[in-house]
């Protein structure tokens, strides 16, 4: 496992370096259109080929990775924190607090939030920069994506409240926020980290889907989600191996993070 963590860490460092050094590794930039080289295969000039508009795929991958891997974990952290807080409070107090909270959670899961997102786009200025648009999108995903795991956190908290150590802690005088922070949350680490790691790729893909509402990235800025979303056409029309690189990068990066964090997910 130690070797696995070293390899994972190295890959992540390379990915981070690549994303941060995108401007130097791909000087053409993500928006320049080489209109005489459309959908070109990999070459010395374009290591991953070009897309339908003649844009360098490697440049778009590096810049897209930077944006998505910066913002998606932030959104996932927000969703996880909200799930921990709301689910934890509900599980801790139990009774009518738990029942009301779960009612709100179920309601939250049932409402078609799509229309809220459309409304948000309507309120935002049309000349919003692509960077601001994608940041707002991820923020929204974070604030809307907590409900499913809040239920699981609540169940886990209720379970922990019945455990021996919890009884002992309460007998020792721990209560309220201190009890939550010192005893409950560490034991919910596994659940919370699982939620976090699931949310990162889900939010990356969701951001691309929200492009249909005018949210997410807008031309010419790429995101990892939008690059993976391009596979939809590629799969049927013209599947080339290099078009799957964004998906591979996403899977590898997420897996590497999970390998690194495995050590912290469960503690005896």
């Amino acid at each position, binding site marked *: *496992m130690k070797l*696995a963590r070293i390899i994972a860490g190295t890959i992540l460092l390379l990915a981070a370096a690549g994303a941060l050094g995108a401007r130097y590794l791909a000087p053409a930039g993500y928006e320049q259109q080489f209109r005489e080289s459309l959908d070109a295969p990999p070459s010395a000039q374009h290591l991953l080929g070009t897309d339908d508009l003649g844009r360098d795929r490697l440049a778009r991958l590096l810049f897209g990775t930077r944006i998505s891997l910066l913002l998606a974990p932030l959104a996932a952290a927000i969703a996880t924190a909200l799930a921990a807080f709301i689910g934890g409070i509900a599980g801790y107090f139990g009774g009518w607090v738990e029942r009301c909270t*779960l*009612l709100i959670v*179920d*309601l939250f*899961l*049932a*409402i*078609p*939030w*799509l*229309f*809220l997102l*459309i*409304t948000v*786009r*309507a309120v935002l200025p049309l000349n919003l920069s692509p960077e601001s648009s994608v940041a707002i999108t991820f923020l929204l995903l974070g604030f809307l994506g907590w409900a*499913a*795991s809040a*239920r*699981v956190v*609540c*169940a*886990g908290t*209720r*379970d922990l409240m*019945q455990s021996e150590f919890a009884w002992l802690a309460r007998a020792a005088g721990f209560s309220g926020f201190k009890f939550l922070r010192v005893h409950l949350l560490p034991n919910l680490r*596994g*659940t919370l*980290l*699982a939620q976090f*790691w*699931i949310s990162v*790729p*889900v939010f*990356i*893909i969701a951001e*691309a*889907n929200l492009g249909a509402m005018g949210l997410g990235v807008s031309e010419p800025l790429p995101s990892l989600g939008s690059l*993976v*979303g391009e*596979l*939809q056409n590629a*799969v*049927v029309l013209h599947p080339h191996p290099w078009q799957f690189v964004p*998906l591979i990068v*996403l*899977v590898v990066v*997420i*897996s590497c993070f*999970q*390998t690194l964090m495995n050590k912290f*997910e*469960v*503690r*005896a």
Partner: protein
Amino acid sequence: MWKKVFLALFRIAAIMLLAGFLGGTLIRVAPGFAFDERQLNSSLSAQSIQAIRQARLADADILHYYVRYLGAFTHGDMGMSQTLNQPVRDLLRDRLPATLRNLAWAVGLAWVLGLALAAASQLTGSRVMTFIGEGLSGTFISTPAAVLALVFLLLRFPPQFAPALLVFPKIYRYCHNLLRQSYALPHVLTARARGASGLRVLIWHVLPTMLPQVLALFGVSVSLALTALLPIEVICDVAGIGQLAWQAAEGRDLTLLVGLTLVVTLLSVSANTFSDLARETLLRGKA
């Protein structure tokens, strides 16, 4: 027991009503509600365009609309779809069975796959098994539903199995961590030290510990499977409620959207309520 069931049903009905109303409000407030693609038809006169707008604004007052809707709903009338020109009740009756079947498949397969991979990884202690589990779950959670649906179509696989591949990573992740946590508990360690077999430890000592959280996850997995299923139904042309939902959202069909919200709420809240009741029964039994 009956009191609990009655309260659960009341809870479901209350959430459905609230979800329908809030969903209808969001739809009403969203931009473009009073507008229709027909307004771009240059053949239409100004009066016709005005009539189209008035028809859409007839439902503008969401409170009155919802009161009327509920009144008709109690008589089994769910209104008329503006985009499809058919009674919503008939549309749902025709489409719901397909979605329910696919949902059952999706949830069932997702749990079998997720639990099997997590259990295999824990039981064998094999790093290869863990690597396979992590790799598969990482791959499928990073794949857009549309891409997976198209791959299934290309390979002529039944499309109803695609949502299972999108949901199982979440089940795998949670179950994997829960298993690891449970295997580290004192009573499980004791059982293993006393020579209990792997399977016996899993079934008699680990699973009962995990069960409350697994039941909570079950309820949530139904919502997740439904969310994954709907776009797949659209792409794979399955005559389920996914297609209806897509057309209704595109056309801002308030009546159809409210009907769909009620149905989706019923499904997901019922699953969550069932898992809550099961958990409570289990915890009471333990106590």
